């Protein structure tokens, strides 16, 4: 294979321009999906984290088991189960519905675990001080504990958000035409690898700034802990 063949197979400008409309279509859907699933997962996580602070073991333990089960199950398994398994019961779930539920369960557990660690990282003295000034338990949580908790685990939250955005690529398996799916379509039509390379480049351009910020934050956090 000559260099020119190689460039033609992987970096063909002509293929990129031909495939661009469909790639752009996929990219928009990837972004839309991210905008949908990140807040959804965050919501699920906040609920789980708050449940884990409740003293009643009948609330706390199911929340912990729930979190571990959905952290143990690979998200793709969950997604396929929802998309290909559940309809056998007569309950039709669209690809978008399966993605929404699957991500809510999976990423919710991850966000939940991070937020729980964040809440635990806030010294008890903070709660005691707040309660001593007459704030209720809920007010203490809302105004004193959660703000500090968020800040303490910010790098982990960003890291998880990055993972969630990357994870949206598995929706291609359930035929949701996001970026990777469209790139695969274009690749099989043109029998040229360029569309997949283009998709990879788009992901990289989209997510690299986040990786850089994260790398800075993580190093700082580690240096502070020594």
């Amino acid at each position: 294979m000559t260099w020119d063949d190689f460039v033609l197979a992987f970096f063909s400008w002509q293929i990129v321009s031909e495939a661009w409309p469909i790639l752009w279509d996929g990219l928009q859907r990837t972004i839309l999906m991210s905008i949908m699933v990140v807040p959804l997962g965050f919501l699920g996580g906040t609920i789980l984290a708050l449940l884990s602070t409740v003293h009643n073991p009948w609330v706390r333990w199911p929340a912990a088991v729930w979190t571990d089960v959905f952290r143990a199950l690979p998200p793709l398994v969950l997604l396929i189960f929802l998309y290909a398994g559940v309809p056998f019961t007569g309950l039709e779930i669209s690809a978008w519905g399966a993605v929404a539920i699957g991500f809510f369960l999976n990423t919710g557990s991850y966000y939940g675990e991070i937020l729980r660690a964040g809440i635990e990282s806030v010294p008890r003295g903070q709660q005691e001080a707040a309660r001593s000034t007459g704030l209720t338990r809920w007010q203490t949580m809302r105004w004193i504990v959660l703000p500090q908790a968020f800040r303490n685990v910010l790098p982990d939250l960003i890291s998880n958000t990055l993972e969630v955005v990357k994870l949206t690529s598995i929706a291609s398996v359930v035929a949701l035409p996001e970026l990777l799916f469209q790139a695969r379509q274009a690749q099989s039509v043109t029998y040229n690898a360029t569309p997949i390379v283009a998709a990879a480049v788009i992901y990289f351009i989209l997510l690299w700034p986040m990786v850089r910020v994260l790398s800075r934050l993580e190093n700082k956090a580690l240096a502070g802990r020594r």
Partner: protein
Amino acid sequence: MTNWERFVDSFFNARVAAEYFPKIVEGFWLTIVLAACIIVTGLAAGLGLAVIRAFGLRVVNLLIIFVVDLFRALPPLVIIALLYFGLPAAGLSMDGFVCAWIALAAVLMAFSEEIFWAGITAVPKGQWEAARSTGLGFLQTLGYVVLPQALRMTIPPLTNRTIAITKGTALASVVAVPDILGAANAGVSFSFNPTPLTMGAAAYLVLFLPVVIFGRWVETRFAWKR
């Protein structure tokens, strides 16, 4: 059939379960083998890169940082697709197992390099100076003094990251690897019953639930105390 009967017949069908149990078990072992390959090569490569980075060669380090960023930013499924569907265009065809192995090992390499490196830089400068002042060389200091301390610090984040990436083995099913999910998917399409998916999900829980709980334990056991 009542709804309940239909539900049981769909997801907990004894006949289908018995038929596909051996396939799922085969997939179970394949998943373990794939996971082991990924963990060993990924962590070894990550540690290797971190050690090379410690030499402080500017050009080499910029290259390492770029490679690490690249594999942190790209979704694993995109890398797998690139290797499995893209590389044949260059005349290089690898089977799905190898593609998944390389892709996920590269991702683990990137994440673990970042963690190992953060651990190395978190060891106080005085440790280097004390060791060097007694005549230990650079590599001796790294090997006997710095790395043992760095590795201890990196155990919790490394454990959790390794678990998260190992769960990605389910992605191999997309490129025709008969791992747990691959075997389950095949079972569903042959039997036209989702019970194999239930078994697959159960198999993943058997495999990963202990690991997730172990990760939780590691986190408290090796908290950042010295």
